[in-house]
C-alpha cells in the first residue's frame, strides 16, 4: 500500500479553504470535507508519487509526526478516499 501511486480523479470539483479541501463529485453532488493532513495528501496525489514519498515530504515535516505512524494513518485514509471515488490508487506511476 505504501508503494501505491495515489491520484486525484480529474472529474472532481474542489476548493481549498483555510487549509481544508471541500470536494464535490459532480456526478452525484456528493460532498466531502478533508482536514488539513488529508488535504495535504490529497493535493499531493499526482499519480507519479508514492504514498510513502507523499507522507515523508508533505506530512511528517508539516505536522511533526513520525513516518511509520503517519504512513499507517495515510494508508487508512487513501483507502477510505478511494472507496468514495475521490482518489485513485494505482500500482504504477501514470501521467498527471
Amino acid at each position, binding site marked *: 500500500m505504501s508503494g501505491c501511486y495515489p491520484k486525484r480523479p480529474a*472529474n472532481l*470539483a474542489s*476548493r481549498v*479553504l*483555510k487549509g*481544508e479541501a*471541500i470536494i*464535490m463529485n*459532480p*456526478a452525484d*453532488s456528493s*460532498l466531502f*470535507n478533508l482536514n488539513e493532513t488529508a488535504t495535504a495528501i490529497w493535493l499531493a496525489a499526482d499519480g507519479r508519487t508514492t504514498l510513502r514519498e507523499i507522507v515523508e515530504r508533505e506530512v511528517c515535516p508539516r505536522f511533526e509526526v513520525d513516518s511509520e505512524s503517519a504512513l499507517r494513518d495515510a494508508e487508512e485514509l487513501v483507502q477510505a478516499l478511494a472507496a468514495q471515488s475521490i482518489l485513485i490508487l494505482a500500482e504504477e506511476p501514470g501521467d498527471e
Partner: protein
Amino acid sequence: MTAALESLNIVIGGLAIEVTASDAAFIEMLSGQYGEFVDSETRAAIRLEVDLTDEPVALDADADVQVSREAGIWKLSRGDFDARYDPVRRYGTVRQSANRHSIDSVIRIIHTLTLAQEGGFLLHSASAIRNGHAFLFAGRSGAGKTTLSRHAPGDAYLLSDEVSYVRKSGGVFLAWGTPFTGELGTAGVNCSAPVEALCFLRQATENRLVTVEEPEALRLLLANVLFFANDPELVRQVFESASEFVGAVKTFYLNCTPGDRVWELIR
C-alpha cells in the same frame, strides 16, 4: 380554428421569460401571481409555450422532479408537468393543467439552469435589502425564514421569504427579488443590491451574529442551493460559483429569537 395565443413576460433577475398559452384566463391568473414581475416592455430572452391539458401528463402523478439533458435539450418533468427546453434556441414547451404551481416550478428550474452558466444560483433562503445592501437568510423549513420576513422593518425591501436569486454581475454578487414565495405568500420586491452577508438561521434564546468560517460556510451554502439537473458540468459550475461567493461575502450564523429585534443586527 385555433384559439388566439395569450402571453405575458415574467422578468426575474433581469431575465424575461415570455409565457404563452391559448387560455386567456390562465395568463390572467399568472399575471396576478407574478404581479410586479410582469413587464411587457422587457424583451423576452426565453419563450415558453404552455400546452394546457386536462389529461394526466405523467404515469405517476406524485413523481419527483427530474431534470436531464438529451441531445442538447433539457427534459423537465414531475408528476404534474412535462416540459422540454432548448437552451440554444431559448425556447421551451410545457404540458400541464391550468394551474400556477406547475409553470412556476418550470420557471424556477429554467432559472437554475441559466444561472448555473452565469455564475449564480437560486438559494433556499429569505432575503432583503437594507441600507442599499442585500442580506440572505438561509435555513431549512422551520429555521425562521418566514418569521424573520414577517418582522422585516419598514426600511427593508423584502426580496423573498423563500427563494433568493443570486448572480454575479460586474464582479459583484447581486441578490434580486423573486416572486417565489413560501409561507408568507407575498412576492418579493423586484429590485437588486450587492450581497453584504449570508446568514444561516439558528433558533436561539438571544439574538447574535457568529462568524462562520469559509469551509463551513461553503458546506452550508451548498446544502441550501436549489439545483435539480443531473448534469456534472453544471453542478461543477454551481460549486465554483458557491465557492467564490463564500469568499466574497461575509458569512454568519444568525442566532435569532422570534420577534423583530433580530433586525437590529441586520444593517
